């Protein structure tokens, strides 16, 4: 069984992809725990390829106008709003 080695830099890279800041000690701790988990996931190598044909079909219908939230309701939980819009961080 091959084994996956995970260092704190790898954890930092994945955390960056997932947009989650981590403290240094959390990166260390996660690296050790992830190594255990990925070594366990290695057991999936033994799984044969399985033909599965899920009976899925696309079901399309025309859009219909229905009830929806009012603008006030939709904005009620936002930490910051401006002129009836969500206020978000600057782009770029």
């Amino acid at each position: 069984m091959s084994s996956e080695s995970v260092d704190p830099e790898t954890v930092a890279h994945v955390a960056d992809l997932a947009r989650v800041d981590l403290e240094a000690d959390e990166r260390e701790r996660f690296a050790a725990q992830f190594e255990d988990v990925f070594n366990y996931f290695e057991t999936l190598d033994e799984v044969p390829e399985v033909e599965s044909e899920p009976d899925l079909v696309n079901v399309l219908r025309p859009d219909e106008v229905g009830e929806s939230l009012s603008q006030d309701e939709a904005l009620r939980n936002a930490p910051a709003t401006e002129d009836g819009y969500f206020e978000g961080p600057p782009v770029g």
Partner: protein
Amino acid sequence: MSHNAFITREEIDPEDSGVLDGQRVAVKDNISTNGVRTTCGSAMLSEYVPPYDATVVSRLKDAGATITGKTNMDEFGMGTTTETSHFGPTTNPVDDERVPGGSSGGSAAAVAAGDVDLALGSDTGGSVRCPAAFCGVVGIKPTYGLVSRYGLVAYANSLEQIGPLAPTVKEAASLLDVISGPDERDATTREVGGETTYADAANGDVSGLTVGVLSELVDGADEGVAAAFEETISALESQGAEVHEVSLDSLSHAVAAYYVIAMSEASSNLARFDGVRYGISGATDEGYEGNWNDAFARSREAGFGPEVKRRILLGTYALSAGYHDKYYKKAQDARAWIKRDFDDALADADVLASPTMPVLPPKLGESLDDPLQLYLMDANTVPVNLADLPAISVPAGTADGLPVGAQFIGPAFGEEQVIRAASAVE
């Protein structure tokens, strides 16, 4: 003793009269309630107040139920002990030094303590059945597609269903009668389950019922748990059930497959929490610093606890370039294999049976340090979610004075069979 079963205690009145008249029902705090905060056990949503009801909540109110509060849970459903909640752990009413199981631990504890008559939980990999087993109550994980997930805050949507918890099989079944059935707001519901009489199936009659015992899941259980389970099966046999053993090769891969799929879906589902529309803002007192990625990463660091971060990162890793085929694709193969094995086994048996949990409820703090050991506790419950099947956990005696649960698994939309089998155990 409160057991810290509730995150929010607030009464929601019924809107009509029906089969749940006078019944007090607790609702897990990842199920949306209009005007009553819904936290998912997370700091991220500690002040989030939904502007609409989940479909199951509307159905409770229409059936005459009084909702008495929102119950504690592992953060976003990610845990097996209710210890990852931002609002502190729930304790087990049977033994206050022990966990109630999870992630619907608050719902199970509230039922076990008699705070409520009934409760709703959600089950992604065992989160209704595990706490039912640990607290000595009944819990049902419905067939995927039987109960609407509209208004359930998503963790791993290909796996999860909302399900009832109750003191008896009959009461759990009658709550399922209320919440099941198609919903135009959840495209994965089917045209079944609208006019059901699941409660009538709780008649204790197992004469001629064939039960396949999943030997791998009995062998993996602690001695005391296995002994209580085997006694339960013998009792069913003496009531006229026909029992045989079943061995499924695919089951040894279920936990790995489940966690790869659940974490991958979680990494995508929880991307919505960026502190803009709801949740903890990534802005500082001076406004936003850096670009939007910096702001989102700060919001998510502040809002999520360690287990949620762990699962989002593991899921992101499993889906990233170079690893997708190795983990995610293999996990989907394992899922299809498990499904096929269950279909074959259910061709020769009306229900399959195993202990619900391989262990007795651990003490608080005992199992948090080693995530992998915690994941392995789910060995007997996750195969059912991977196969989209219905299952029930029913109290099946005790070991060392602690509750043991027996699990019965049926074919898709075969809820009556598992309810009938479980009712004969009571």
